[in-house]
């Protein structure tokens, strides 16, 4: 401590050798801080230089009345310096960077699958992309705007399960709301649209009038006519 104290005093009096010695002696400390900032897309060597700027500021400002060790004072200052540096270009939105990674991942996955002719594991994908799993996984979940290189679909069936379901699954069952389909099928385009908007989308007559560019009175009239027609149709 006495040794460091003497060097700091000399440095503060403007002796460059003292500063240099302090930088050399504290390089391990700066590196330890830098280590915690790995994986942010900035070279460690660059961060080390920034960290040293922080260290120099500490040397200039350290006051012996602080009652703390120099290193204790320096660590948060060095962290702060590096953070300020990283802040300036850390404004990219995560959604964007995940999206970019997802695009790359898709291309690489299809490439590897083609080359190896087998399924690719996520770990292999991460390795190939040189990213950590903890960023790749959320990226895989947020794939957007990815143009597929997919080959045409294959058509091998799923056997028993599929057959089981197909039996139970005739069109009518799926479309139980569609018993009106014949009736609706006989309407002209505007009438269809009107019915759809009124009864499937629950639009008001006024809204429908606006979309179809006719008056609300007309909407009401057409609607009545159609409904009447439907009712007679369904009664028989």
């Amino acid at each position: 401590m006495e040794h460091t104290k003497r060097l700091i005093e000399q440095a503060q009096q403007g002796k460059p050798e003292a500063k240099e010695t302090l930088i050399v002696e504290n390089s391990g400390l700066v590196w330890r801080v830098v280590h915690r900032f790995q994986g942010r897309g900035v070279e460690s060597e660059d961060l080390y230089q920034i960290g040293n700027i922080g260290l120099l500021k500490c040397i200039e400002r350290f006051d012996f009345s602080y009652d703390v060790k120099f290193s204790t004072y320096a660590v948060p200052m060095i962290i702060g310096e590096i953070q300020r540096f990283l802040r300036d270009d850390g404004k990219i939105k995560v959604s964007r960077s995940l999206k970019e990674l997802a695009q790359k991942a898709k291309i690489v996955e299809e490439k590897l699958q083609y080359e190896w002719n087998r399924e690719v594991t996520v770990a292999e994908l991460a390795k190939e992309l040189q990213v950590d799993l903890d960023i790749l996984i959320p990226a895989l979940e947020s794939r957007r705007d990815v143009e597929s290189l997919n080959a045409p679909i294959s058509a091998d069936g799923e056997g028993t399960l599929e057959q089981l379901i197909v039996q139970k699954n005739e069109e009518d069952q799926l479309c139980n709301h569609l018993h009106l389909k014949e009736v609706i099928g006989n309407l002209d385009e505007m009438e269809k649209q009107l019915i759809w908007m009124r009864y499937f989308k629950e639009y008001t007559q006024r809204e429908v009038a606006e979309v179809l560019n006719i008056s609300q009175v007309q909407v009401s009239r057409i609607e009545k006519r159609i409904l009447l027609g439907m009712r007679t149709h369904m009664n028989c």
Partner: protein
Amino acid sequence: MKYENECVTYFAAKSQNESLTRVLVTSFLATYDPTVSEITDVKTAVSEAVTNAIIHGYEGQDGMVELFCGYAEETIYIEVADKGKGIGDITRAMEPLYTSKPELERSGMGFTIMEAFMEGIMVVSTPNLGTRVSMYKKLSRE
């Protein structure tokens, strides 16, 4: 049961958390070097169970959903539980195409998909107390 690794998560029954559960399961599995298609199988099954908890269990009301992941002997164990409405007739609920909510554009395929993509599935449910779906799948190892 003694798991080699395990993890249980409770999250708010909101649809925005569905993708979180898939991320979680993927990352839990990732340690065991699964293929992308094994991951998709498990993810899809989890997604079905979690969606069910949110829309049927809590019917859009507030509540917490539990997702358990366990790993033992090359097998992944998943449990999804809610403290919601419960299921009266489990056998019928598990039939393909049975849905109690056609108006929400559900198709009644959730349980069928879980059964198809996992190796085993068990459902325990008590009306007004909640539902627990337990599933497992053995991972293919070379």
